[in-house]
């Protein structure tokens, strides 16, 4: 199997001096569904944001599909980002525009700067966005304003936005932390089903170990900026959990 994402000796120190990532190395293969677990402040969010350069890494390398993301500049970052979809804890939709428009935002990286800025999308892109919404069961909500939707529905729109990018990788940063348990279950089912069907590689930050064990092919445990566990869910026993979350 080929590695679609290879991280070597990744380090990140923030301007205020905190060392968020000490020395992270890992390989993710095409189509893997990986859960990243760890206590809050361990560096999970920073790790994900380094991959699409929302956070500037301080050192190391991140090879995404053969291209080094750390060395990418300007235009290359845009190209990288459009191949990497992202889903957020707070959904981060533009609440005052329609659901359909929020999904179309996933196409911005493909449009030329002016057309995209003016919100001009091709008929084909709009059709595809509608199909994605239909697939996620949001067809009826298409023309509603995003803030009229429930939390679970908003997160589905967030997934739809990432899908419309036709991404190789999806990064999900605590996608269910703001949702109730039942909705969380639905969202995780949708996310894992879609990634498997479309062969999308997925990295999910989670803080619920049980959810990670049920959905992931592989679990990576992070503590204080370093990888302390990396293996299949079966291998994550109580002792390993203790290593990740500490005494």
């Amino acid at each position, binding site marked *: 199997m080929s590695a679609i994402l290879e991280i070597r000796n990744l380090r990140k120190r923030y301007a205020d001096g905190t060392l968020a990532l000490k020395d992270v190395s890992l390989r993710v293969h095409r189509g893997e569904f990986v859960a990243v677990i760890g206590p809050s402040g361990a560096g999970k969010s920073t790790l994900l944001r380094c991959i699409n350069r929302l956070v500037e890494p301080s050192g190391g390398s991140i090879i995404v599909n053969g291209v080094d993301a750390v060395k990418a500049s300007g235009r290359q970052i845009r190209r990288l980002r459009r191949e990497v979809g992202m889903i957020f804890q707070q959904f*981060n939709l533009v609440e005052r525009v329609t659901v359909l428009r929020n999904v179309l935002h996933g196409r*911005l990286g493909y449009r030329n700067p002016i057309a*995209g800025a003016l919100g001009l999308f091709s008929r084909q892109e709009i059709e595809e966005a509608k199909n994605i919404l239909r697939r996620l069961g949001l067809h009826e909500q298409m023309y509603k304003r995003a803030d009229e939707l429930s939390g679970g529905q908003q997160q589905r729109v967030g997934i739809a936005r990432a899908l419309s990018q036709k991404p190789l990788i999806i990064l999900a940063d605590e996608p269910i932390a703001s949702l109730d348990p039942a909705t969380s279950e639905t969202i995780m089912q949708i996310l894992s089903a879609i990634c498997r069907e479309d062969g999308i590689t997925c990295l999910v930050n989670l803080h619920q170990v049980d959810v990670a064990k049920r959905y992931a092919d592989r679990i990576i445990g992070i503590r204080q900026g370093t990888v302390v566990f990396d293996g299949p869910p079966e291998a994550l026993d109580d002792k390993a959990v203790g290593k990740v979350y500490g005494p």
Partner: protein
Amino acid sequence: MSMEVDWAPAGAARQTGRTETPARRRRDPVLTGAAIFGAVFFVFGLIHLNFDYGQLWKGTLAFVRSWAYLFPPNAAEWQPILAAALETLYVAVVGTVLAVAVAFVLAFFAAENVAPKTAPLVKGFVSLLRAVPTLVWALIFIVAVGMGPLPGILAIFTHAVGMLTKMFAQSIEEVDEGVLEALRATGAGWLQVMLQGVLPCVATSFLAWSVFRLEVDIGESTILGVVGAGGIGWEMANAMRNYEFDTASFVGMVIFAMVYSVEFATNRLKNRIRLRG
């Protein structure tokens, strides 16, 4: 009942006056200092201005007597006066609309969260535009381009750009950081993030500020004429200079009617904007 209980200790503390009780809230020394300074400065101001109080009395009598001249208002010259009133509106509209357009662009370079590099520079620049009153701008522009509506429009435009850019930028700075991050993560460029992500969030407040500014500018526009920058202020200054008090009172009524109806209309507009949320 509980209300009374809440109230009693506070009232008691107040009635006991100077005796310090633990329940009494401590006063902020800076505010107390400011209050004392204010009182002293008020007395100083009165002494410094050295009003002739005899004149105050005589003037008031004269002013009251002049009311007789104010009535009945002389509407004989209603045509040029109404034309001047319209010109006042035109000047305000052109100046404000242009200012909204320019401030709309400038604001994206003045907001810390989306343009940290240019923000301090643009903010400093617009605060200078804002600090010079519209009328002073009008005087400067009159010397530069001559009398008429043009210096009035430019003056309103300049001051309004200063104020609107600040307000628009503040609205942009309130946009949720997560939304910006989400759009950047799709690979969207700066312009795309601004127009697709920021603009929908700030559109309502931009609109509300623009309407508010139009209201203020119509008020400003009425006085620009006094220094010769076109509009109804000129008619007022003229009438007073010629001691045509009855004409002046008619002009005053027109100004009042104009500003009042604008206040009324914009209040309704603002309510509608708020309803749309």
